[in-house]
Structure formats: structure tokens, C-alpha cells
């Protein structure tokens, strides 16, 4: 500043902006995400996410395996909705082959998908509260999740990467105690959600940390391609289970919760309500569950030459599987359209102007799983 100029009060104190690095090793980035932020004091001016720390070339590896062999890759992308990601993939292959999945298998798929949604949302709840400082809620969320994960272990032998779906059905039939355990889980979740509401939703500090923070307008959400609770939190009532129904969802009665303002609070509320809706779906499935085979008789999996696409609603949003077949036993190109990639894309816009602590809150409310982004 030239010496002969009288400094105005705003410019008299020289301040500097600085760049800070959050991650890739950081307790709150839910995986290996590097957020480079430009800060002015505590206020965030710019966020630049750096991805790729867990890029494992899954899509390239899919070109080396036959279609049934590469189901296990889909577990390892969004590992918190592994059942649903499995399902998205086998659904696209079944579409290409024209396979009719037996009814019992469809009901089992819906049940395990909704149970997976429950386990994903309870884990998200725990992690989100822990990010905001309420460490005890983490244990409460995991207590409920443990019931679902134990059930899956009895069902398919795995707690996280299930590899349960097969082209034409599911790998194996339900165990004998599956239905009673699902009933117990439904009861527990209803009680647990009341507890979460009392402990966390009703807490003034929590509300102050989430209400009005990180507002995502519906137009911005649609333009970034956000989906799932991020989109519904902004007020856009779009759920693939209702709008492009697949499997036996048309026969099931459930609501799609939406938010009003598009802030972290709304995204939180949408997920809490979704847990209750999943319980509704599970209870109906238990009543409607038919007998029969759990796997269709699929011979050789060689989709005809062409491009195929199928999508479904995972816990995080719209998961799409696109592949190009040249008529061989292995795909020519496999592409996964993951929900988290687009959901994270809106962070540089909605995170700017808030404090560092709010960025943690916003990132948590977007519920991103980084391996889903990097693949």
C-alpha cells in the first residue's frame, strides 16, 4: 500500500489467505480423500478435492474376467451398500440376456437390499455424529448395524463384501432363522430411531451444527447429477424405486422422504426417515415372501453385441452399470456410474463460505464413500 494513501479501516490490517490440506489421512474424510482448502482465518474460500488415492482400476480389471467372475468387484466400490451394488451389476447383465429372475429371488434381493440400506444408514449416522463430536452415538449406530451384519454373515458368510447376487438370482437360499431375525431387526430399528431422535436430533448443539449449513438448491443438485438422500434433501422427490421401479418394488407400499431446505439437517432427516421406510418394506416382504427357486437356470453368459445399462437406488443414490459387449464371455468395457462421484462434485460449491468445522459437517452429510468415487 503506497505511503501517501490513507488506509481504510478494512485494509489497515494485512491478512493472508492460506492453503490447508485435509487428508488424505484424516479422521473425517471417510476414506482417502484429499481436500485442499483455501482459508481466510476460519472461513473457507475454495475447496479442491483431489481424488484417486484408492483408484484400483476396477473397471479395467472387469475386462479380464467373465461376467459371473466379476461380481465380487462390485462389492468393493461402495462397500457399505455392497448388496445393492452387486444387484445393480447383475441386473444389467440380466437385462442384456433377458433372464427372468424367480419371484423368491426377487423378494430376497429386495430384503437384503433394504437390510443393507439399514446397515449403511446406521453406520453413516454413527460416523456423522462422531465427526461432529458426539462420540457415543457412534457406538449406538454400530450396535444396530451389528445385528444386520451378523445376519448377513449367517446368510452368505461375509460381513462386508457379500458377493451374494448371481446372474439370475441369489447365491443361496435364506437360512431358517432369517425371517425371525429380520423381524427382531425391524423392532430394534424402530426403537433405535426413537433413541437417535431423542439423543441427537433433539440436541440444540447438533441442530446448530446442521441447520442452514451447506445449502444445496434443487437446481444445483440436479445439475451436478446428485442422487439419493443428497437430492431428496434438497426437495426433489426422486427415488428410482418409485420413479423407475425394478424388481418387486411396485408391489410394496412405502414413502419417499424429502427435505425442504437442502441443508445438512434435511439430508440427515431424510436418511433417518428412510430407515423407517426400509423397515416398512421389510415387514411387507416377510409377509409376501413366496417359495420357489432362488436362481434361474442361466447357461452361458454371453450377452449379444451391444450396449446395456441398468440402474438402481443404493443407499447413497443412483448406481448405474453400463457395459459394452462384443458377444464374448468377457465384457469389452464396463463402466460404473456411482452416486458418490456426483454427490461429492457439489462440495466445492456448497462448502465455500462456511467455517472449517462446517466443511466436516457438510462432507459427512453428503455421505460419500471414497472407494465408490475412485473405483
Amino acid at each position, binding site marked *: 500500500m503506497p505511503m501517501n494513501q490513507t488506509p481504510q479501516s478494512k485494509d489497515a490490517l494485512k491478512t493472508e489467505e492460506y492453503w490447508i490440506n485435509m487428508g488424505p489421512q484424516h479422521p*473425517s474424510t471417510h476414506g482417502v480423500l484429499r481436500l485442499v482448502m483455501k482459508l481466510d482465518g476460519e472461513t473457507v474460500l475454495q475447496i479442491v478435492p483431489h481424488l484417486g488415492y484408492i483408484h484400483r482400476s476396477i473397471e479395467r480389471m472387469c475386462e479380464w474376467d467373465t461376467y459371473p467372475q466379476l461380481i465380487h468387484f462390485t462389492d468393493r466400490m461402495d462397500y457399505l451398500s455392497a448388496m445393492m451394488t452387486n444387484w445393480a451389476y447383475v441386473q444389467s447383465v440380466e437385462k442384456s440376456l433377458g433372464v427372468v429372475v424367480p419371484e423368491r429371488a426377487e423378494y430376497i434381493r429386495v430384503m437384503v437390499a433394504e437390510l443393507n440400506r439399514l446397515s449403511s444408514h446406521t453406520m453413516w449416522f454413527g460416523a456423522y455424529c462422531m465427526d461432529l*463430536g*458426539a462420540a457415543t452415538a457412534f457406538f449406538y449406530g454400530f450396535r444396530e448395524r451389528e445385528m444386520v451384519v451378523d445376519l448377513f454373515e449367517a446368510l452368505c458368510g461375509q460381513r462386508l463384501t457379500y458377493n451374494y447376487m448371481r446372474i439370475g438370482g441369489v447365491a443361496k437360499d435364506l437360512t431358517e432363522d432369517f425371517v425371525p431375525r429380520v423381524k427382531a431387526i425391524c423392532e430394534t430399528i424402530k426403537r433405535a430411531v426413537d433413541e437417535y431422535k431423542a439423543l441427537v436430533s433433539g440436541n440444540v448443539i447438533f441442530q446448530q451444527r446442521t441447520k442452514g449449513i451447506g445449502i444445496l438448491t434443487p437446481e444445483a443438485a440436479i445439475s451436478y447429477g446428485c442422487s439419493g438422500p443428497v437430492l431428496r434433501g434438497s426437495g426433489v422427490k426422486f427415488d428410482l424405486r418409485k420413479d423407475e421401479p425394478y424388481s418387486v418394488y411396485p408391489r410394496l407400499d412405502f414413502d419417499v422422504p424429502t427435505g425442504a431446505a437442502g441443508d445438512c439437517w434435511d439430508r440427515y432427516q431424510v436418511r433417518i426417515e428412510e430407515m423407517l421406510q426400509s423397515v416398512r418394506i421389510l415387514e411387507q416382504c416377510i409377509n409376501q415372501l413366496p417359495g420357489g427357486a432362488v436362481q434361474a437356470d442361466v447357461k452361458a453368459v454371453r450377452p449379444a453385441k451391444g450396449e446395456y445399462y441398468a440402474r438402481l437406488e443404493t443407499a447413497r443414490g443412483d448406481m448405474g452399470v453400463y457395459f459394452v459387449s462384443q458377444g464374448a464371455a468377457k465384457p469389452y468395457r464396463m463402466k460404473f456410474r456411482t452416486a458418490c462421484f456426483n454427490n461429492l462434485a457439489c462440495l466445492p460449491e456448497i462448502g465455500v463460505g462456511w467455517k472449517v468445522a462446517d466443511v*466436516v459437517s457438510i462432507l459427512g452429510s453428503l455421505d460419500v464413500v471414497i472407494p465408490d468415487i475412485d473405483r
Partner: protein
Amino acid sequence: MIDSNAALTASDLIQQLILRPGPTLSQVVGPALKAYVMGHGGFSEAGYHALVAFLCANAMAGFVTVTALVLTLAERKVAAFFQNRKGPNRVGPWGLLQPIADVLKLLQKEDIVPRAADKPVFLLAPFVGMIATYMVLAIIPFDKGLAVTDLNIGVLYITAVSGLGVLSILMAGWSSANKYSMLGGLRSAAQIVSYELSPALVVLSVVLFTGTLSVQAIVEKQGQGWNLWAMGPMGVVGLLIYLVAGTAEINRAPFDLPEAESELVAGYHTEYSGMRFSMFQLAEFMNMFIIAALTATLFLGGWQPLAIAGHRLLETVGPDPLDPAKTVVLFAIPGYVYFFVKTALVVFVIMWFRWTFPRVRVDQLMKLEWKILLPLSFVNLIAVALWAAAGFGK
């Protein structure tokens, strides 16, 4: 001196030490020691006082170490029970030897000093924090007459000295040569300095009501009724303000932004390891103990038994065992037991806060102090002034 108390046997002495340590130490043990040291040891009067100061310092150091270790275990057990699990239970029954295992572990750690760190400041920071802690502990009365020292401006001294802790945090944050630590240190400085004000005003209201700055006198006066109810509704409001602001002053959740793990890894003590880190932890736990002790002292009657409107529980009046001519109050339960139970309850409440509430954001924290707690404490002060002027609680 011992000769004039010829009737006092060894078992009597021990019993009096347990039941009434304050008077026993000052009237029996002190003079006996003085006689021995000046007579046989050839100390001067000043030498005797120096010896007493040395012994008190050692006693306090021992007390602080043991209490801080016990509190680390208590924190882990309390946290565990809130979180539906058990906490340490392998090392010793109920995990009682866990703190010892922790200390041994920390002692073995490599002492890392970052190359870019400002070395003298970096090395000194933990000790400055401990110094501030010890200084406040010096005047907290554990029982009648049982405090390291009793200043007649005790409350003023506490308010002045408790702000020294911020120096340690600033030193640690600045000298670590780490952006996260610096952020943590600066946040904490703003926080502690702001939250000095409300507790000071609340304590001022207690002083106004009691009419003295001396901490011992404040506790003595609560013999007729704890300040919590003797001060009317202002006692409750004052206690709540003091507890909330005190939790903020010691950087504990929900106000633990300076060490918010999910945002700044570990804030101002990120770069510390081994024993230096444990000094920060000890200072934090002892600060928690101090806030709890001060809450108990100022509002819950300190070492006094339960007293409401002149009625006291569980005590009798009888001849003084040390001087049968006088009549004194004889407690059935020693005063320090009351003190520790009250302090333990408040410590539990502070831990309860930590494991229940999410963290408050830094600007919300400032707003809470400057826009809510401070005006409330002013109103509280005026209300207490009117209450005292109207003659209640005299």
C-alpha cells in the same frame, strides 16, 4: 508441645488426623515438627517454614499425580459405560492398574521435537500449563483448615491465575510449526480468554453474597446452607453458568475445538509425544478437577455436610479432643470425604457432557459466551445484590 497433650495417644492422633486433619495438622503435628526441627535439627524459623513449604509441595505433587491418573481411568470407564461397553478391565481388577500401564507406555516413547519447531517455547509449554494448575490447587480447601495456603484474597487469586493456562496452549500451538496446531492454539486462546468473564462474574456474585474474598470463609459460611439454595434461584443459575463456562474454559467437550480430533487431528498438542503429551493430558484432567472442586467449594458447600437453612446433617457438637476446654463441631464423616464426593459428582457431570453432546462451532461458542452467558451473569450479579440487600441468607 506434645507434652501438654499428654493424654493424646498415638491411636488418638491417627483418629484425629483422619477425622479432623486440618486442626490436627496445624495444632499438633505442626508445632511438634517445629519443636523437633528447631530444637534438634537446628533450623531457624524461616527454615522451618521452608521445610513445611517443601513438604506441602511434595504432598500436592503426589496428590495431583495420583488424582490425574485416577481421572484418566475414570474417564475411560465412564465413557465406556455410556457407550455400551466395559472399558479397561484387563490390567488389574476393574482396570485399576491401567493408568500405570499407560504411564509406562508413555515413558518409553521417543521424544520427538519437530525440526522447524521453536525449541525453547516448544519444550516449555507443557510445564507452564502444569504451573497454572498447581497454583490454583494451592488454595482449594479440602477440609476445615486443610489447604496448602489460605489467602484472604483467594477468589481474586483464582481468577487471576486460571488464565495462565492459555499461555501454555498458545505456546504449544505456535511453536509446533504446524498449521493445524496453530489453528488449535488460536481458537483456544480466544475461547479461554472469553470464558474467563462469566465465571468471574458468577464468582463475584458469590463473593457479594458472602461478603469475603477468602475461599475458606466462603465455605465456612455455607455451614448454614449451601450457596446453591441460600442464594435462591441465583444459586442454581450461577451454578449452571459456572459449570458451562468452566467446561469451556478447560477446553472440554462440547467446547473442545482446540483438540477436535475430527477436524484438526489433535489441535495444539499434535506434535507432542510421550511424556510431554501426557503433561498436557494431566493438566487437562487436573483442570477438570479444579473446576469441579471450585464448583463444589463455591456452590455445594465444599467440605461442609449437607446444610439447608441452618439445619445440618450428620454431625454433633462436643468437646474438642485436642483441647477439652473448647466445644467444637464433630463431624461423623470427615469433611474431605464430603469434598471429594461432591467433586466426584461434578467431575462425572463434566464427563457426561463430553460423551453426550456434539461439538460447538467456534463462532457459536463465542456467541454463547458474549451474547448469552455474559449478559446472564450480569443479571445474576444484580439479582444477588438485591437478594443480599433484602436480607436473605444472612
